[in-house]
C-alpha cells in the first residue's frame, strides 16, 4: 500500500465520528485492563475473598457498581474481567489468524487438491454455528480457561482462511503477481511478499472486529458455565451468576453486561471505521 | 420561430464538498425549440451531462449543489418549482441513457417496467390497457415479438433490443422534450447507428424536441439541426449544423473537427489539454442567437 492511499484512509477514518468514538472506547477499555492493578479500587477482590462486612451492597460512593454476595467490589472484578477478556481474545486471534491466513494463501494460490481439501474443510467448520462447535468441544474437555480458548481458536481460523482465499483469488491474476511469476519468484515468495501485503487491510479490519466477537464468544461460553471457572473474574459468568439474584441485586449482572456491550461496541465501531477507510471487504 | 421547450440562461453550477467548491458550469445559455433537434457536444467532464440532470430538476435538491441562473422546461422554472418538473418526468420530458441494459432494472420484466413508465405523472391505467400500449410501442421500434420482449428480463435481450425498448419507453407517452444523454454509447457502433436512426425517424415524424448530448461529432452531424459546442463548462460555439461543420470558427471546434476520425463512431480525439486558444469567447453563427438576445 502506498503512503498516499494510507493518508487518504486516515482522512476518511478521521472524518467519521463513529470511528473516533470506537477508538476512544477501545483505548479506554484497553487502558483500564492494562492498569487494572492501579485503577481498581479493591484489587484484593479478584480472588474468592471479599469484604464480608459489605455484602450485596447497592451502588454507592465506596462501591460504584455495588458488591456481590460475598462482598467483592463489582467494579474491580469488571476491570479484571476486561483484562481477562482482552488477553483471551488476543491469544485466540494470535493463534487462529496466522493458521487461517496461511491456509487461505495456500488454497488460493496453489489451487488443485490443496485448494479442494482446505476449502472443503473450511466449509465443514463454517457449517456449524461457532458457539455450538465451541460448546461441543468443551463437552469433551474439562471446563478450564485454556480449554475454552482452545475451543474458540479451533473454530476461528476458517474465517481467515475464507477471507484470504477470496482476496487471493481476485489478486492472483493481477499484473504484479504475473510479473513476479514471470521473473521466476518462488511460490512462497509470491504468496508472502506479493499477495499477502494486499490482504493486510482486510486482515487488520477483521482482526479489529474479531476482538469484539471473540470477547462475545468467550463470555457466552462462560455464561453457559462452559468457560472460565470461578473465582477468576469473567464478565460472562458474572452476568450468569448475577442473574440468579434478579431483580433485587440487579447491579450484579447489569454492570458486567454493560461492560461487555461497551467493549464489543468499541472494537466494532473501530473495525467498521477501518473497513470504510480501507474500503476492505470483510 | 416556435416557442422553446427548454431554455437555459446564464446557468452556473458548482459542487461543494466540505470547504472545497468546484465550479462545473460557468454561465451557459442554450435553448431547444419545439420539434427541434439540438446537440450539445463536448468531452467528458465538460458539463454536458449535468445540464440534462438540471433540466430534469434532479440535481438541484442534492446536498452540496449550487445552481444559479434560469432553466425553464416547458414553461416551468426547474430551480424554483422542481416539483412541477418532477411531475412532468417520464411523460412530458423523458430521457435515454448511455447503456440501455444497465438502465433497465435487472430483476423486473420489461413489461413491469413499461407499465410503470406508462403510469408516469400519475396517469391511471389498467394493466390490460398498459400491456396493449406497451406492445404497440415495442412494435413501433421494430421489435419482432413484442409480447415475448415484455415477458423478458433485460439480461435476456441484446443491447440493441434494450435500446429499442428504451426508445419505446421514452416516446410512449408522447413527450414534448427528449433528453438523450450519449444514447447507446455503450453499444456496438453499428447497433448504435441503427438505433439512432430509428430514434431519429420517430422523433422527426412526431415532432418531438430533442436535446442530444454527445461527444461524437459524426453522430451529431447526421442527427442534429443545431449544435452547441461546450468546453470546460462554457459554450464556445453555437451554430446550425451545416454552418458549424462547413465553417468552424472557434479554435476548440476547429481542433475537434481537424482531429475527428472520418469514420463513424470515433469518439473525441485527444486534444492538447488546455490549449490557451480554447478559452476564447463564445462564437455564434448567423441567425442563432438565444431567444431575447440581439443577433451578434
Amino acid at each position, binding site marked *: 500500500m502506498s503512503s498516499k492511499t494510507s493518508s487518504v484512509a486516515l482522512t476518511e477514518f478521521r472524518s467519521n465520528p463513529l470511528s473516533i468514538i470506537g477508538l476512544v472506547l477501545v483505548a479506554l477499555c484497553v487502558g483500564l485492563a492494562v492498569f487494572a492493578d492501579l485503577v481498581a479500587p479493591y484489587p484484593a477482590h479478584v480472588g474468592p475473598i471479599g469484604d464480608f462486612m459489605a455484602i450485596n451492597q447497592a451502588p454507592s460512593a465506596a462501591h460504584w457498581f455495588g458488591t456481590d454476595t460475598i462482598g467483592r467490589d463489582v467494579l474491580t472484578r469488571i476491570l479484571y474481567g476486561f483484562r481477562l477478556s482482552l488477553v483471551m481474545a488476543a491469544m485466540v486471534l494470535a493463534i487462529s489468524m496466522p493458521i487461517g491466513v496461511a491456509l487461505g494463501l495456500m488454497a488460493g494460490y496453489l489451487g488443485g487438491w490443496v485448494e479442494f481439501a482446505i476449502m472443503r474443510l473450511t466449509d465443514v467448520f463454517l457449517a456449524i454455528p461457532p458457539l455450538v462447535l465451541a460448546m*461441543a468441544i468443551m463437552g469433551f474437555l474439562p471446563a478450564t480457561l485454556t480449554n475454552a480458548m482452545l475451543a474458540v481458536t479451533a473454530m476461528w481460523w476458517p474465517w481467515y482462511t475464507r477471507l484470504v482465499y477470496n482476496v487471493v483469488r481476485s489478486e492472483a491474476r493481477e499484473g504484479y503477481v504475473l510479473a513476479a511469476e514471470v521473473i521466476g519468484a518462488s511460490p512462497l515468495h509470491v504468496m508472502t511478499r506479493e499477495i499477502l501485503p494486499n490482504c493486510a487491510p482486510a486482515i487488520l479490519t477483521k482482526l479489529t472486529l474479531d476482538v469484539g466477537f471473540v470477547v462475545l464468544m468467550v463470555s457466552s461460553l462462560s455464561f453457559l458455565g462452559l468457560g472460565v471457572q470461578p473465582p477468576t473474574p469473567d464478565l460472562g459468568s458474572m452476568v450468569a451468576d448475577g442473574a440468579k439474584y434478579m*431483580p433485587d441485586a440487579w447491579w450484579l449482572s447489569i454492570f458486567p453486561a454493560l461492560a461487555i456491550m461497551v467493549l464489543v461496541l468499541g472494537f466494532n465501531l473501530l473495525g467498521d471505521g477501518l473497513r470504510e477507510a480501507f474500503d476492505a471487504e470483510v | 420561430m416556435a416557442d422553446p421547450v427548454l431554455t437555459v440562461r446564464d446557468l452556473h453550477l458548482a459542487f461543494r464538498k466540505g470547504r472545497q467548491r468546484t465550479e462545473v458550469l460557468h454561465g451557459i445559455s442554450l435553448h431547444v425549440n419545439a420539434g427541434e433537434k439540438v446537440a450539445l457536444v463536448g468531452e467528458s467532464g465538460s458539463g454536458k451531462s449535468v445540464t440534462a440532470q438540471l433540466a430534469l430538476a434532479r440535481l438541484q435538491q442534492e446536498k452540496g449543489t449550487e445552481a444559479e441562473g434560469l432553466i425553464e422546461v416547458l414553461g416551468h422554472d426547474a430551480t424554483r418549482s422542481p416539483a412541477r418538473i418532477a411531475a412532468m418526468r417520464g411523460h412530458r420530458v423523458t430521457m435515454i441513457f448511455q447503456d440501455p441494459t444497465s438502465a433497465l432494472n435487472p430483476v423486473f420484466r420489461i413489461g413491469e417496467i413499461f407499465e*410503470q413508465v406508462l403510469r408516469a405523472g400519475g396517469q391511471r391505467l389498467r394493466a390490460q390497457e398498459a400491456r396493449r400500449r406497451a406492445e404497440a410501442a415495442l412494435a413501433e421500434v421494430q421489435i419482432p415479438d413484442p409480447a415475448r420482449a415484455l415477458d423478458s428480463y433485460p439480461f435476456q435481450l441484446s443491447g440493441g433490443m434494450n435500446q429499442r425498448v428504451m426508445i419505446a419507453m421514452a416516446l410512449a407517452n408522447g413527450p414534448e422534450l427528449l433528453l438523450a444523454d450519449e444514447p447507446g454509447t455503450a453499444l456496438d457502433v453499428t447497433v448504435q447507428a441503427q438505433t439512432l436512426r430509428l430514434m431519429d425517424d420517430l422523433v422527426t415524424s412526431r415532432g418531438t424536441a430533442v436535446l442530444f448530448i454527445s461527444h461524437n461529432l459524426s453522430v451529431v452531424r447526421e442527427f442534429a439541426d443545431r449544435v452547441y459546442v461546450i468546453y470546460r463548462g462554457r459554450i464556445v460555439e453555437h451554430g446550425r449544423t451545416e454552418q458549424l461543420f462547413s465553417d468552424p470558427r472557434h479554435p476548440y471546434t476547429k481542433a475537434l473537427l481537424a482531429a475527428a476520425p472520418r469514420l463513424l463512431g470515433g469518439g473525441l480525439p485527444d486534444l492538447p489539454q488546455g490549449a490557451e486558444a480554447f478559452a476564447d469567447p463564445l462564437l455564434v453563427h448567423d441567425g442563432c442567437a438565444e431567444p431575447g438576445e440581439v443577433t451578434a
Partner: protein
Amino acid sequence: MSPILRLLIHRLALSLLVLAGVSILIFFVARVVPGDPARIALGPNAGAEAVEALREERHLNDPLIVQYGWFLRDLAGGDLGTSLYTRRPVLQDIAAYLPATLELVFIAGLMMVLVGLPLGRLAARHQRRGPDHLARFLSVLAVCTPAFVWGVILQLLLAYVWPIFPLEGRLSTGVAPPPDITGLYTVDALLTGQFGTMLNALYHLILPATALALSGIGQSARLTRSSMIETYRKPYIEMARAYGFKEGRIARRYAFRPALIPTLTVLGLDFAAMLANAFLVERVFVWPGLSRYGVEVILRKDLDAIVGVVLVIAAMFLITNLVVDLIVSIINPRLRLAEKRGK
C-alpha cells in the same frame, strides 16, 4: 430439468457432503479426547467388568475407523445412539426439546425480517441524516451485544421493573399445553382452536424472541442499508427517477428487490446463528428447549448426545441455507433463467 431444481439438487448434494464432514469431525473429536466414555458414563464406582461390557457393547474397543462405520450404520437407521443421561434414544430426546427452540427461532427470525429490513431501508433513504445515524448506531449496538445480555436487560426492565411480560417459561402456570402435533405451542393451539392458549404462548414468546432477534435486527438493518445505498447508485434507479417513478415505490420495490439479493444470503447465516444464540436466551428465560438438553449433556460428557445435538444443529443450519438459496434464486431471475442466457 428446470434450472432451480438443478441448482437445488446441486446444493443438496453439497450440503450432504458438508454434513458428512461435520459428522466425521465431531465423531473423531468426541473419540480422541482424554477419558474413557464408558467409565465416565458409569461413574467412578462401577466395576471394571461393567465398564468393559459397556465398551464392548458400544464398540469402543474397535479401531476408530470401524467405530465410525458403526456410527454411520446407526445413523442411516435413524439411530443417534442412546443418551447416558436420560437413558433414552438421543433422537427421541432431541425431538422432544427441539420444537420449543424452533418456535423461538422462527418468531425471532420473523422479527429480524419484519423490523430489520424496513429499518435499513429507512436509513438508506435518509443517508447521512438523522434517522440514518440513529439507525446505524442502534444496529451496531444491537450487533455488539450478546443475546444473553439483551435477555437479562429485557427481563429486568419488562418483567421485573414493569411486569408487562412473563418472566420465564412457555406458558403460564395453570395453562395446559396444547395437544402435541408439531410441538410448536402456538401452532398446535391454533390447530386445535385453543385461542387462549395460543395467545398465552405468544405472550411468553415475545421477550425471549426479542432478545434473540435484536442482534439479527441490527445486522439485517445494517446490511439492507448498505445494499440499498449501493443500489441507489445504479443507472436503473437514475432511470426510474428520470421517468417519475414515485420515490416511495422505488424504496419499497424498485430498489429494494435487487438490494435484497445480496442481503438475503447473509440473513440466512444470521438466522442460522440464532440457533446457537438460542442456547443463551433459553438459559435466561428458562426455556425448555434444546439448550437445556445440550448444556446438560455437555456438562455430563454424554458423548452420543453431544454428537447428536451438533449434527442436528448443523443439519438445520444447512437446511436454512438451502431454503435461502431457493428464495434467492426465485427473486433473482438471472439464476432462475440461467439456461436461457445468451439467446
